[in-house]
């Protein structure tokens, strides 16, 4: 039985298993800036949720960016990010989302490797 071998250019899952380091943010200025950004994101996300049905029908297969409670659509992330940043440079609570070409059930998984016996 053959098993996949990684090249030097690739990482195995074991290589990626370095532990994640979790730290609390204590800087008050950073927290204040983060809360302001959260509020902007909440406004944009609520707008996105209110228009979700229309957005997923009309912009299927495209990338969208919501900023300033406004939608920007295009073929690539670069395109919509540029449009949104130009229109709402002050809004750091925007977000990008690329809508799949087809509506399908989503199942995500991580590749598992078997060790040779």
């Amino acid at each position, binding site marked *: 039985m053959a098993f*996949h071998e*990684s090249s030097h*250019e*690739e*990482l*195995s*899952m074991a290589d*990626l298993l*370095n*532990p*994640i*380091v*979790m*730290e*609390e*943010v*204590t800087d008050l200025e*950073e*927290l204040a800036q*983060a*809360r302001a*950004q*959260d509020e902007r*994101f*909440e406004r944009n*996300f609520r707008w996105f*949720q209110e228009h*979700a*049905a229309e957005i*997923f*029908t009309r912009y299927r297969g495209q*990338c969208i960016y919501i900023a300033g409670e406004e939608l920007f659509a295009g073929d*690539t*992330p*670069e395109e919509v*990010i540029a449009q949104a940043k130009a229109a709402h440079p002050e809004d*750091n*609570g*925007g*977000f*990008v*989302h*690329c*809508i*799949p*070409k087809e*509506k399908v059930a*989503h*199942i*995500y*998984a*991580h*590749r*598992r*490797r078997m060790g040779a016996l």
Partner: protein
Amino acid sequence: MRIDGEWALFDDGVARPMVSGEILAADGSWVKFPFLVDTGADRTVLTAAALTQLGVRPNTSYDGISGLGGMAESVVIETQIRLSRENSSKVVFRGQYAAVTEVQSLDMCVLGRDITGLFAVIVDQAGGVVCMLSQRHHYTIQLN
């Protein structure tokens, strides 16, 4: 510690469990992203759109991401993910994360067990609850 999420509508009315968070970009700014809370995902994976927006230089290619659609081209980046706590403070997760490089491979950043494994995760669609608990926060199962 409690990190609250929500059930949000994605893709033609399908509700998914998500938490909002930020990822540290190459220019030092924090960029907002909704994360799918995927209790079945071994690792946190970022979208190609996120990779573009962050501008973070990948460390190397990575061959370990697959789903039902087969293998996805991906890279590894070193960055930080920041989530909001119940008390309006923030918690940061520093590490290496995989990111797909094809836009159609993944439509939403996935929060996998490299992060969710640090918490007890409640994903309760009937109850409308998405919640990650650790430290002094616990859950109780009751029989009514």
